[in-house]
C-alpha cells in the first residue's frame, strides 16, 4: 500500500471499520510515518475538544424523564379534549342544521300546498262529502257571514 492509499484509510482506522488485515497494514504504516501519526493525533485532539463526552447527573436524568412523562400525559389528555373540541365545533352545528332542515321540510313546506291546485280526486271527494252533508246532492251556497267577511 502506498502512503496515499494509507492516508485514505487513516480515518477508517480511527473510526473502526477496517478488516483485521487492513488494520495491521495501516498500523504498520503509522509506526513508520510521522506525518500520518501527526494527522491522527491532531484529529483526536480536535475531536476531544469539540466533542467532549456529555455527562448528566442521575438527578438531572430523573428530572428529564419526569418532565417528558408529564408532557406525554398532558398530550394524551389534550388528544381527548381535541376530539371533544371537534364534536363541539363541527358535529353539534351539523346535527342542529340537519334538525332545522328537517323541521323546515316537514312543517313549513306542506303549508305551501295551499297555493297549489288540488288534484281531481281530491276535488271530487271534497265535493261528494259536501253534497252528502247538504242532503239533496245539489250544490248549495251555505257560507256563513263569518266565512265571507274578511
Amino acid at each position: 500500500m502506498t502512503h496515499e492509499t494509507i492516508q485514505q484509510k487513516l480515518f477508517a482506522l480511527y473510526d473502526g471499520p477496517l478488516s483485521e488485515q487492513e488494520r495491521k497494514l495501516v498500523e504498520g504504516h503509522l509506526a513508520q510515518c510521522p506525518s500520518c501519526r501527526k494527522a491522527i493525533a491532531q484529529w483526536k485532539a480536535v475531536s476531544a475538544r469539540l466533542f467532549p463526552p456529555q455527562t448528566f447527573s442521575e438527578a438531572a436524568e430523573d428530572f428529564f424523564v419526569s418532565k417528558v412523562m408529564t408532557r406525554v400525559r398532558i398530550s394524551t389528555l389534550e388528544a381527548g379534549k381535541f376530539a371533544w373540541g371537534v364534536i363541539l365545533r363541527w358535529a353539534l352545528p351539523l346535527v342542529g342544521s340537519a334538525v332545522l332542515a328537517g323541521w323546515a321540510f316537514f312543517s313549513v313546506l306542506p303549508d305551501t300546498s295551499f297555493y297549489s291546485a288540488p288534484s281531481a280526486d281530491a276535488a271530487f271527494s271534497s265535493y261528494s262529502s259536501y253534497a252528502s252533508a247538504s242532503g239533496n246532492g245539489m250544490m248549495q251556497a251555505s257560507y256563513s257571514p263569518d266565512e265571507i267577511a274578511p
Partner: protein
Amino acid sequence: MRQYHKKVMGYCLSMLQNHTEAEEAAQDIFVKAYRSLPKFKGNSTFSTWLYRITTNHCLDVLRKRNRRKTYSLDALVEEEGDSVHRLFSSNPVAAAQMENRDLAGKILSTLPEDYRIILTLREADGLEYQEIAETLDCSLDAVKGRLSRARKQLQENLRHFLRENDVYKEE
C-alpha cells in the same frame, strides 16, 4: 428513555449549542417518538429511528430559529481568537472546561449544516458508518465522503490554532 437520554441530549446540544434549547428539543423528541411509536415498523434499529427524529427535529429548530447566529471563520477568529487559542492550548485542564462548550459550538457553526450533523453523529455519539447512513438515509460511500470532507474542512478552519499550539503532541 434513560438509555437514550444522554445520546439525544448530547446530539441536541451539539446541534443547537444552547443547553436550555437542547433540553426542550430533547423533550419534544421523546414526546414525538412516544406518539409515533405505533408507526415504528422495525425496518431499522430503534436508535437509528430515534436519531432520525432527532436530526429532523434539530434541523427544524435551526430553520425556525432565524435569530441563530452562525459564525463565519473570519468573525470567529476576530472575536474569539484568544479563546480558540486557549481551547487548543496544551493545558488539558483549561481545554476541558465546561465553558469551552460554547466556543466549540461556535467553531462547529463555521461548518455547513450537513458537515456538523455528520461530525456530531460520528464524533459525539460514536455512530458506526452504517448507522449514520441509515440515520441520514444515504449510502455508505456518501457517509465516508462527507465525513472526510467535513474533517478536512474543520482542520483547515483550525489550521492556525493547531499549528501554533501543536496540540497533537500531548495526545
